[in-house]
């Protein structure tokens, strides 16, 4: 079998099989496509910088950490601290996400972070959100809460969309919750969901069925008002 260094020798498409907890896979990957079968370890696709990583299984903690561009698609569920500090690209999870998903995601000019979670998300979803879009679909969880506690706490930009009509548990009074209009659904959610559905070969219409609520920061309650300069 020929051995080669994927960092130095370059690659277009890589298949990793029997993956069992190996960490830092796809870290900083700039281009090409990687397919992973099994369960990759922590820090999968951290600093991902344009490459595409498909996981046919679950991911562990800190996947897509500080990701910059590209696509991470996880066919199973993701662990804690998914997409922390992500600044661009797409993270798609078909199953659930653990605690602290999408904390401090950002957007800047053409870089917009997009995180879509097919199932439910744990507590602290989108805390400190500074930009970008988080969508939680709660597929197969109809009637249940699809987020945990402290959803969006401390967020100051960006939007969290939830496919539910239930208000998240203990939602902060510094956040605004509103119902998403059909127009907004078509304009913002439909293109993202269409892409998401095509990646996992599922029906986009099923993902868009029902009502969505949006959570955003209340700009009139900014941090600056907390201080008095000595």
């Amino acid at each position, binding site marked *: 079998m020929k051995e080669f260094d994927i960092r130095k020798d370059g690659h277009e498409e890589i298949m990793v099989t029997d993956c069992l907890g190996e960490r830092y896979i796809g870290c900083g990957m700039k281009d090409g496509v990687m397919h992973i079968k099994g369960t990759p370890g922590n820090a999968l696709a951290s600093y991902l910088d344009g490459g595409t990583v498909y996981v046919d299984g679950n991911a562990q903690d800190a996947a897509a950490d500080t990701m910059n561009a590209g696509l991470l698609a996880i066919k199973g569920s993701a662990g804690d601290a998914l997409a922390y500090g992500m600044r661009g690209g797409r993270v798609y999870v078909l199953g659930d996400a653990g605690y602290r998903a999408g904390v*401090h995601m*950002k957007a800047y000019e053409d870089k917009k972070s997009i995180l879509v979670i097919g199932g439910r998300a744990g507590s602290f979803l989108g805390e400190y959100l500074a930009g970008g879009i988080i969508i939680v679909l709660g597929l197969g969880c109809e009637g249940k809460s699809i987020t945990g506690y402290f959803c969006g706490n401390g967020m100051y930009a960006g939007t969290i969309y939830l496919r539910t009509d239930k208000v998240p548990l203990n939602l902060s009074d510094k956040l605004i919750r509103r119902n998403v209009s059909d127009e907004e659904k078509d304009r913002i959610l439909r293109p993202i969901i269409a892409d998401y559905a095509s990646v996992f070969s599922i029906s986009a219409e099923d993902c868009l069925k029902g009502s969505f609520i949006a959570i955003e920061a209340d700009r009139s309650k900014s941090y600056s008002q907390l201080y008095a300069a000595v």
Partner: protein
Amino acid sequence: MRRYRIRKDESCVSCLRCVSECSFGAIEKGKDRTLVFHHDKCTDCQRCVSFCPTGAIYITEDENRFRQNSVFREDDIREILLQAETGGVLLSSMGASGKSVPIYFDKLLLNASQVTNPSIDPLREPMETAVFLGQRPEEVQRDQSGRIVDNLPPHLELRTPIMFSAMSYGAISLNVHKALAAAAEKLGTYWNTGEGGLHESLYPYKENTIVQVASGRFGVHGTYLNTAAAIEIKIGQGAKPGIGGHLTGKKIIGDVSKTRMVPEGLDAISPAPHHDIYSIEDLAQLVMSIKEATHYTKPVIVKAAAVHNIAPIASGIARSGADIISIDGYRGGTGAAPKRIRDNVGIPIELAIAAVDQRLREERIRDRVSIIASGGIRNSSDAVKAIALGADAVSIGTAALCALGCHICASCHTGRCAWGLATQDPKLTERLDPEKGAERLVNLVNAWTREIKEIMGGMGINSIEALRGNRMALRGVDLNAKELEVLGIGYAGE
């Protein structure tokens, strides 16, 4: 609230230079080229005094004092009044002003050679001030033919044990960054971007740049990580341990916005913890993922504030795979921090360095990491003492700003710095010529380096390596037994 009083004497020629220099609106032009003083706006930054062509201006503490009380001092009353009026958390800048916390550097005395061993004259004999920061291999490896295998992990090479501390673009101006970068290059040392990203125009200084990854992850991307000699994970800083950062949207304009990759006018918030680091194991993971992303070519620094348990924390950091630990003490500066935190949290750098060095030696892992000390290093003898207590190198922030004009008025958080340093106002930032600034920084560090050589020579030591952790070179005065024990030094005369 009035704190200072502005006066002028008869030598004033009404040139109005002071009016154009004052960025706080404390001196205004009145009718017929007279001056109107708004004493309450004065910060005692000394800009007008420095630029008055006839030396006509005087800034003094206001003689009108609150009634003296030995419990409720003037600042206490002033702050209560301010908070009663605004309901705000007190915001301050620069380093701690806790007056009753000792500056241990001032209580340490250095040794010198007399009779029993010769001192060295640095003008005649070679004196090594170069320092290498990074992990040292635990054993010498040889190949089959007996040749030594180069198993040295990536290092930073400093020609002098003095670096520039992390100060972010946003907190300080681009011109200050330019001056620091150019000076670091000339001096063969390093400057640190802080967490506000690295402006593209500074990419050429890559070999002398340390980039920071803080909890906000602003401007952190592949190019950023790879446009540096080393990467620093910022856990905390001495001025505000345990507290995140908040750069107000007002300062996020133009290139600051572009460099941080934060939209204009939007606040930039750094959460208090990194939410992907809740343990030493998580830290190890971030260290290793950064090494992965930079192909194991650069050392990783972990910067933490000196807090009560800094010794075991440093032990954890040393075991996390980090190459260098940067410890920032109680007196470390900041562009903005809640005053109560700045003045009451953390421990002095002298005690922290001694405790960490001792602990890592006891655990036999001192060579796994290098230590950078910062937080109130004011001169070359502070640097020598910090190294003798166990640091490999020191870094200076406030002292570097002073070299560029700062008079420590501690108004950085207002964004109106009259010296053009801690501001983004283009009219103010142009007050610093980055080339001249770089020259002044080079002068400062060269002067300190010469003094360090002289001090070492007097002790009969000819390399920083031999000074590091050499506590025999130190004695204390005015210290109690516990302080001497923590510092690991004897009393003067012992």
